[in-house]
C-alpha cells in the first residue's frame, strides 16, 4: 500500500457509483440544519456543529470537486468522521425534508476508504475470518458442529425429545446465528432450540459456512466479501431446500440478508428471510407458544436500527415485548424514529478505538432507558445488547438487557409431554 493516493483510482471508484440520487442529494441539500438535533453524536457533543449529519458528508462533494486529488491525511479525516461520528442508523434520513439519505453517502465514503486500505482493525479482522473460515470469528466447521451437538445434549435433560437438527434436508426453516453464539453464548442456541421445539417448528442448522449470518464486511465497505457472506447462506438454504432463512437476534445480519443481498447478488433469492422478532411474535400471536406468566418487573424494548428503522419490524417488536410483560413501558420515540444506541454500524466490533465515542454517543439511549424506569430491556440485536450493557455500567442504569429468547424460554408454557419425568432421578 503506497502512501500516495492515486486520484484516478479514487475517481474510477466514485464515478460509476455516483447515481442520480447521490448527485441530486449533493446538489439540493439546502443546508437547513434540520438534521442536526436528530443525530445522537450532535446531541451528546454539546451540539458541536461538526456533528451535523449534512456536514459529515461534505467530503464526498469535496473529493469529487478536487477530482480525487486528496492525500492520506485528508482520507484520515474522512475516516474519523465516517467511523467515529456516524453509526449509519439513518435517523437523519427520516427527518430530512428532501429525503436525503445521508447514511448511504457515509456508506459510499467507507467503501471508498476500503479501496485505499483504510479500514478499522476490528472490522478488517472479521473480513479476513469470513474469507478464510466463512464466519467472522474463525470458528472451524468441527467446532461449530460439536457446539451444536453439545447444545443438544445439554438441553435434552430439560425438554423431552428436543433436537438440534443439522443439515436436515427439506426443513421449513434454516436458522442462522451470530458467530459469537457458538464462541461465547451457546445458551442463545439452546434457547432458540427450546422455542422451536415447543412451537413444533421444522427447522435445521447448516453445518457448512453460511451458518454465521453476520456481515461486518457491509459496514467497512467491502461489498465483495459482503456478497460472499450472503451467497454462502443462500447456497446452504438452496442445498437444504428450506423455505425460510431465520436470523438470530442480530440486526445487521437481517438487513444484509433481507434488504441488501438482492442488490449484491443481482437477483432476489427465493427463500424468505425472517428475523427472530417476527418469528417469535408470530409464534405467540398464533398460540404456538403460550406465555405462562408475564414478566412482572417493568420492561422496555430497544429498537435496533437494522431491524426497526431499516427492517420494518417496529410494531411486532413492540407487541412482542407487550406479550411478555405485565408492565411494558415504551421509550420516547419508540419505533421507527427511535434513537440509535451508538453501538451500530460496526462501532461495537471496532473495539477499543471506538469505545470513548461509543459510550458518549450512547448517553441519549441511557437517558431514554432511565426515563422509562424499566428494569429489564429486551434487546433483539447482538451489537445493541453489548452496547446497552456497557451503557448500563457507564451510566449506572441498574438494568438487565436480555434477548427475547431468554425471556420466552423462561416464561413459556412447556407441554406436559416435554417435561422430563421426575421418577427417573
Amino acid at each position: 500500500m503506497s502512501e500516495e493516493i492515486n486520484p484516478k483510482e479514487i475517481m474510477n471508484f466514485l464515478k460509476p457509483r455516483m447515481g442520480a440520487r447521490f448527485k441530486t442529494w449533493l446538489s439540493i441539500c439546502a443546508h437547513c440544519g434540520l438534521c442536526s438535533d436528530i443525530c445522537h453524536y450532535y446531541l451528546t457533543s454539546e451540539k458541536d456543529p461538526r456533528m451535523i449529519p449534512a456536514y459529515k458528508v461534505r467530503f464526498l462533494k469535496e473529493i469529487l470537486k478536487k477530482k480525487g486529488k486528496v492525500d492520506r491525511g485528508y482520507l484520515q479525516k474522512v475516516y474519523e468522521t465516517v467511523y467515529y461520528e456516524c453509526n449509519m442508523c439513518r435517523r437523519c434520513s427520516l427527518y430530512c425534508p428532501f429525503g436525503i439519505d445521508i447514511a448511504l453517502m457515509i456508506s459510499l465514503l467507507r467503501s471508498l476508504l476500503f479501496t485505499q486500505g483504510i479500514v478499522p482493525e476490528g472490522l478488517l479482522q472479521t473480513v479476513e475470518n469470513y474469507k478464510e473460515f466463512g464466519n467472522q470469528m474463525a470458528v472451524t466447521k468441527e467446532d461449530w458442529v460439536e457446539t451444536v451437538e453439545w447444545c443438544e445434549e445439554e438441553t435434552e435433560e430439560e425438554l423431552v425429545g428436543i433436537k438440534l437438527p443439522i443439515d436436515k434436508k427439506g426443513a421449513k426453516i434454516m436458522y442462522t446465528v451470530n458467530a459469537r453464539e457458538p464462541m461465547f453464548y451457546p445458551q442463545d442456541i439452546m434457547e432458540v432450540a427450546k422455542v422451536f421445539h415447543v412451537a413444533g417448528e421444522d427447522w435445521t442448522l447448516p453445518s457448512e459456512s453460511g451458518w454465521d449470518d453476520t456481515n461486518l464486511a457491509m459496514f467497512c465497505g467491502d461489498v465483495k466479501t459482503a456478497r460472499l457472506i450472503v451467497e454462502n447462506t443462500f447456497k446452504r438454504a438452496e442445498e437444504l431446500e428450506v423455505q425460510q432463512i431465520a436470523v438470530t437476534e442480530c440486526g445487521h445480519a437481517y438487513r444484509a440478508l433481507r434488504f441488501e443481498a438482492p442488490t449484491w447478488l443481482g437477483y432476489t433469492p427465493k427463500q424468505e428471510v425472517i428475523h427472530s422478532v417476527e418469528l417469535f411474535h408470530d409464534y405467540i400471536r398464533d398460540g404456538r407458544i403460550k406465555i405462562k406468566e408475564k414478566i412482572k418487573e417493568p420492561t422496555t424494548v430497544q429498537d435496533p436500527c437494522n431491524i426497526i428503522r431499516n427492517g420494518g419490524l417496529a410494531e411486532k417488536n413492540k407487541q412482542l415485548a407487550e406479550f411478555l410483560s405485565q408492565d411494558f413501558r415504551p421509550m420516547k420515540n419508540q419505533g421507527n424514529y427511535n434513537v440509535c444506541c451508538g453501538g451500530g454500524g460496526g462501532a461495537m466490533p471496532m473495539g477499543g478505538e471506538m469505545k470513548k465515542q461509543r459510550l458518549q454517543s450512547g448517553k441519549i439511549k441511557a437517558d431514554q432507558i432511565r426515563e422509562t424506569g424499566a428494569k429489564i430491556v429486551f434487546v433483539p440485536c447482538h451489537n445493541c445488547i453489548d452496547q446497552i450493557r456497557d451503557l448500563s455500567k457507564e451510566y449506572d442504569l441498574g438494568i438487565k438487557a436480555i434477548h427475547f429468547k431468554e425471556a420466552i424460554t423462561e416464561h413459556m408454557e412447556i407441554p406436559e409431554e416435554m417435561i422430563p419425568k421426575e421418577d427417573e432421578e
Partner: protein
Amino acid sequence: MDFYAFVEGPLLWIAFLTFIIGSLLRAALFFSFSLKKDKIIYQHFSLKYVLATYARWLFPFNKDVTKNPVFTILVYVFHICLIIVPIWFSAHIALWEESRFEWYWTAIPDALADWMTLIFLAIALFFLLRRIISADIRLLSTFSDYFLIVVVALPFLSGYFLSHGTVDSIGILGDNMELIHMLSGELMLILIPFTKLSHFVLFFFSRGATAIEFGRRGYTM
C-alpha cells in the same frame, strides 16, 4: 432595442425558457442516471409510498413539524408566499393578459399580496440572519446559500417598492425600479435549474426515491 425593451422582451423569454427547459432537463437527467445506477428505485417502485410521502411533506404532517415547529412552519409559509404572490398578483396577471397569450386568471386581493410579500421578506431576512448568527448553520453554509436568499428576496423587495413607490424619491433607484424588479426575477428564474433551487422539481424525485427505499421495509416516511 434599448436595454429596457431587451429586459422586458427577449431576456424574459430567455429566463422563462431557461427555467422551464433547464428544470425539465434536470428531471430527465435524474431519470437517465437512475435507470442505470439506481435500479433499486424501479425494482421496488410503489406509488403508494411515493404519494404518501409527498402528502406528508408538502403539507405539515411530518416529524419535523413536531420536532422544530417554529422553523418548519416558517418554511411552509415562505414557500406558500413564494409560489402564490408571483402567479396570482393582479399586476402580473394584467401583463399576461396583455401578452400574446392573452391568458387571464383570478387574482388574489392586492392587500393580501402586500402582506404576503412583507411576511415573505421578513422570513427571508430571518433565514439570512439565522445563517449568519447560528454557529451550526454558518458552518454548513456556502456562498451560494447566502446569495440565493438574496436572489429570491430581491424580486419581492423590488416588487413591493415598485407597487408602493416606497423609494421613488431616491433618484436612480426610483427611476429604475421596474428594471430592477424584472432583472431580479429573471435572475432567479435562470438560476433555478443550476442551483439548489432546483429542489422545486428534484424534491419529488429525491423524496420519492427514499420513500421507496423505506417503503420496501413496509412503512411510510
